[in-house]
C-alpha cells in the first residue's frame, strides 16, 4: 500500500469544504480552551460529544481531534504570557517561556513555540501515516487472548506513567474497573450493580463520568486556589525568531518531536508526559544547563514540540487497535461509537476516507494553527483575562446541558454531580483519576475478551502465556511493574515528577 496514495485520499477528505470548516472550528476551539486555564480538552470534548451526533463521521472526528492538538498550541500561550499553564501539558513551558516574557522576549517565545509545534505536528502526522498500516495488519492477527493481554499492558502502562504512588494508581484502576461493570452483563443478561435503577442498565455513561470527575470535580478544586492572572502584554512585537533562535532550537525540536512521538504511543502516554520527558532530556544534553529556568529558548521549543507530537501519535493505538491509550482517546472511541463505527483494525479498510482523512486533517489543522495563532494573539490575551469566577458557571451550565443531551435523561445530570464529588475527593486525597477513566473503558472489554479467550481454550488460563504475542505483551507488563517496584528506579521516578511540580 502506498502511503502517498493514502495521504492523497486523506487530503481530499480533509480539504472537502465541510471538513475544512469543522477542522477550523476544532482547532480554534481547541486553542481557546487551551488558552483558558481550568478548562481542558477532556471536558471540552466531553461537552461537545453530543453535538457531533448530527455530523458526518469524518467531520465529527476531525473536529474533536482538532480540539486536542489545538489545545496544545493554546496552552503554551498562557504558559508564556501568564506564568500559568493553560493546559496540563504546558506546565514545563511555564518555566522558561515566562522567563523569556519577563525579559521582554514574549514574542520570540511564542513564535518558537508555534514553530516547534508545527514541525512536530507535521512529523507526527507522517509517523501515524507510516506506522498505522503495519500495526493494523498485526492487529488483524490478534485473538481474544492477545487483546486481553494488550489491555493489561495498557492499564499497567497508564499506572506506571501516572503521577503519585503506585499503590493508589493500582487502587484507582480497580475502582475504574468496578465502575465499568455496572449495567447489564452482555453474555448472561444479568444486571450488575444497578441498585435497581433502570437508567443504570446500560452502564454508567462514560461522558457522565468524565464530565463529573474532570469537569465538575476540577472546577471545585480550582476554586480553592483562585488567583488573579495578569498577562504580560508588553513587547509582543518582534514575533520573528532570530537566526540564533533557529540555530539553537533545531536540535531540541527534533529531539522533542522524536521523544514525544514515542511517548505518545505508549499506553497512558500522550501530550503531558511527552512535554515533561522532553524538558528533562534537553536539560541533560544541553551545554549550558544553568540557563534552564531562566529563559532558555530550548526549554520552550523541546516540550512544545513534544506535547504536540505526543498528542497526535496517541491516536495510533486508538485508530489501529481500537484501544484508547489515554482518557482523551477514550472519548474519541466514544465519538466513533456514537457514529456507529466500531473502533478497531477494520476501520482502516472499511472507512479509508475517515481514517486517512483524520490523519491528513491533523496536518491541515497544524497549518491553520500556525497561521492563526500569532495574528490572533490579541484575542487570546483578552480571553486569558476573563476571570475564572465568570468562566466556571458557564462551564457548569454547558456540562449540565451536555450530559443531559447524550441520553436525554435527567438521571445523568444527578450522576454527574455525584461523580463531581467523587472527583473532588480523589483530588483532595492526591489520587490521579486518569487511570480510572481508562480502566472504566477497558474493564468491560477486558472481561469480554478474557471470557472469549478462556471459552476457546476450554477454561485453560495458560492460553494467555502459550500464545506468543500474548505472552510477550504480558511479559512486558510484568517487566514494567517490576521495574517500577524496584526501589532505586521508583526513587528516580519520584524525582522526575517532583521536578515538574
Amino acid at each position, binding site marked *: 500500500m502506498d502511503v502517498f496514495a493514502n495521504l492523497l485520499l486523506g487530503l481530499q477528505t480533509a480539504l472537502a469544504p465541510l471538513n475544512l470548516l469543522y477542522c477550523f472550528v476544532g482547532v480554534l476551539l481547541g486553542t481557546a480552551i487551551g488558552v483558558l486555564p481550568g478548562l481542558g480538552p477532556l471536558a471540552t470534548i466531553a461537552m461537545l460529544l453530543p453535538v457531533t451526533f448530527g455530523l458526518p463521521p469524518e467531520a465529527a472526528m476531525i473536529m474533536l481531534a482538532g480540539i486536542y492538538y489545538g489545545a496544545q498550541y493554546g496552552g503554551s500561550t498562557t504558559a508564556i504570557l501568564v506564568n500559568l499553564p493553560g493546559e496540563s501539558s504546558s506546565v514545563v513551558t511555564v518555566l522558561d517561556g515566562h522567563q523569556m516574557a519577563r525579559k521582554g522576549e514574549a514574542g520570540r517565545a511564542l513564535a518558537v513555540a508555534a514553530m516547534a509545534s508545527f514541525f512536530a505536528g507535521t512529523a507526527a502526522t507522517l509517523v501515524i501515516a507510516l506506522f498505522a498500516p503495519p500495526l493494523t495488519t498485526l492487529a488483524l492477527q490478534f485473538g481474544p487472548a492477545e487483546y486481553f493481554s494488550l489491555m493489561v499492558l495498557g492499564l499497567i502502562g497508564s499506572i506506571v506513567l501516572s503521577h503519585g504512588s503506585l499503590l*493508589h494508581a493500582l*487502587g484507582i484502576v*480497580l475502582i475504574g474497573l*468496578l465502575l465499568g461493570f455496572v449495567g447489564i452483563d452482555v453474555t448472561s443478561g444479568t444486571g450488575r450493580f444497578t441498585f435497581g435503577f433502570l437508567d443504570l442498565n446500560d452502564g454508567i455513561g462514560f461522558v457522565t463520568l468524565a464530565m463529573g470527575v474532570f469537569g465538575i470535580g476540577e472546577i471545585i478544586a480550582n476554586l480553592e486556589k483562585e488567583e488573579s492572572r495578569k498577562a504580560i502584554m508588553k513587547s509582543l512585537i518582534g514575533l520573528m525568531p532570530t537566526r540564533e533562535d533557529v540555530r539553537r532550537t533545531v536540535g531540541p525540536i527534533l529531539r522533542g518531536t522524536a521523544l514525544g512521538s514515542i511517548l505518545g504511543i505508549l499506553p497512558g502516554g500522550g501530550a503531558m508526559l511527552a512535554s515533561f520527558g522532553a524538558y528533562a532530556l534537553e536539560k541533560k544534553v544541553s551545554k549550558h544547563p544553568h540557563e534552564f529556568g531562566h529563559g532558555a529558548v530550548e526549554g520552550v521549543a523541546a516540550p512544545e514540540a513534544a506535547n504536540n507530537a505526543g498528542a497526535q501519535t496517541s491516536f495510533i493505538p486508538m485508530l489501529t487497535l481500537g484501544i484508547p491509550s489515554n482518557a482523551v482517546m477514550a472519548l474519541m472511541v466514544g465519538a466513533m461509537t456514537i457514529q456507529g463505527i466500531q473502533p478497531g483494525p477494520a476501520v482502516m479498510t472499511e472507512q479509508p476516507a475517515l481514517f486517512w482523512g483524520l490523519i491528513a486533517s491533523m496536518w491541515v489543522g497544524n497549518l491553520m494553527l500556525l497561521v492563526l495563532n500569532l495574528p490572533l494573539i490579541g484575542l487570546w490575551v483578552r480571553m486569558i483575562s476573563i476571570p475564572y469566577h465568570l468562566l466556571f458557571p458557564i462551564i457548569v*451550565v454547558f456540562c*449540565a446541558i451536555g450530559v443531559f443531551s447524550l441520553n436525554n435523561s435527567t438521571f445523568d445530570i*444527578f450522576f454527574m454531580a455525584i461523580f463531581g464529588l467523587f472527583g473532588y475527593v480523589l483530588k483532595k*486525597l492526591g489520587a490521579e483519576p486518569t487511570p480510572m477513566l481508562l480502566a472504566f473503558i477497558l474493564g468491560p472489554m477486558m472481561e469480554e475478551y478474557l471470557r472469549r479467550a478462556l471459552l476457546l481454550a476450554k477454561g485453560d488460563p495458560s492460553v494467555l502465556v502459550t500464545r506468543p504475542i500474548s505472552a510477550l505483551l504480558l511479559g512486558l507488563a510484568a517487566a514494567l511493574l517490576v521495574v517500577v517496584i524496584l526501589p532505586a528506579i521508583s526513587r528516580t521516578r519520584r524525582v522526575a515528577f517532583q521536578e515538574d511540580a
Partner: protein
Amino acid sequence: MNAVRSPKDFWLGILYLLFGSVALWVGRNYSWGSPGRMGPGYFPAIVGLLLLGFGAVSIGRSFLVTGEPVGSIAVKALVLILGSIAAFGFLIDRLGLIVAATILALGSAPASRHFALERRAVIGLIALVAFCALVFVKGLNVPMPLIGSWLQSLMPPWPGQ
C-alpha cells in the same frame, strides 16, 4: 495520640474497602460460572477482593509512613455547585431551560470568593442563557423545554400552538 500518620493513605484505603465490600456484597448472588464459562460474578469478585487487599495495605501504610494532611474541604463550593446541578436536573422539565440554567449559573457562581453581581456578570448571564436556548434547544434540538410544565399553565397560550 494520632496514630494515622498519612491521612491521605488512610482515607483512600477506606475508599478501597468501601468499594471492595460493596462489590462483594452486591455481587454475592451473581453466578461465578467456571473459568471456561465465566459468569457475571467472576471478574467483579476478583476486583472486589483485590480492592479489599489494597484497602488493607493502604490503611496499614498510613500508620507507618508520614504523609501530607488532606487539607481543608471546600464545603461551600461543593454544596453550591453540586446542589445547583441537582436543582437543574430537577427543574429542567418543570421550569424549563431559561429558568433552570439561570438558577444553575447563579447558584454555582457564589462558590467563588470573587463573586459579585456586577454589570459584566449580569450581561454574561443573559448572553449565556440566550446562547443555550438558541444553540442547544433551537439549533441542536436538545429536547429540553424552554418554558417548563409548571410555568406553561401560567402563560397565555403560545401563538401557533
